[in-house]
């Protein structure tokens, strides 16, 4: 199965990644794309800074992808997670799941995002428009609960 995992500073192109995942394939009946974007928090936020643990980020996302493949009949999977400085409107994360039918693709994409948020070693910090280097964003209990439901 085509598994493509990338950790990068550069922006990515969702449409181009989807085309790459399905190119030359006639067995895929469903592709689900989730794109996580940086929002401006009501005009307060100038940028997000994303720190990550090189080496472990790739390894952990690989383990999450393995788990998704074990649970659903996937035909392809792409995960791209950015790091560094990201401004509102830009993309942060992309998850693409391909399967013969939609249910597996929807569920696997949801599972991947829930686990990425709680297990992939990335940390966000806010930089605010008033010039202050804001706080590290705190982990949300709702995200832990979202990941728990897959157990």
């Amino acid at each position: 199965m085509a598994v493509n995992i990338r950790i990068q500073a550069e922006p990515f192109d969702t449409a181009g990644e989807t085309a790459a995942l399905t190119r030359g394939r006639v067995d895929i009946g469903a592709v689900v794309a989730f794109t996580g974007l940086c929002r401006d928090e009501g005009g307060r936020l100038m940028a997000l800074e994303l720190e990550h643990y090189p080496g472990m980020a790739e390894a952990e996302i690989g383990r999450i992808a393995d788990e998704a493949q074990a649970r659903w009949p996937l035909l392809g999977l792409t995960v791209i997670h950015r790091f560094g400085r990201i401004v509102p409107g830009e993309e942060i994360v992309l998850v693409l799941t391909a399967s013969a039918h939609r249910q597996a693709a929807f569920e696997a994409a949801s599972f991947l995002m829930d686990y990425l948020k709680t297990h992939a070693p990335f940390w966000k910090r806010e930089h605010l428009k008033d010039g202050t280097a804001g706080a590290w964003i705190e982990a949300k209990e709702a995200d832990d609960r979202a990941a728990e439901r897959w157990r």
Partner: protein
Amino acid sequence: MKLVYFAWVRERVGKTDEQVALPEGIETVADLVRWLKGRGEEYEYAFENEGIVRAAVDHVHVKPEARIAGAHEIAFFPPMTGG
């Protein structure tokens, strides 16, 4: 053994990584945290809320009771906020 720190744990400890020679009797991640907290107030501050800081041994998430014998790299970091 190499220790690495991320996000506010890194800021509180004041370094990104360090090499340490552990004394006898440090067998688990929890033992290591206890030993680190005795090394200075920056470590005391970083690990002040036990149970908040997470750990990974050689790029794999572990619990405090995990054994560290043979580990090359142990990481400490806050709960993750990616995605």
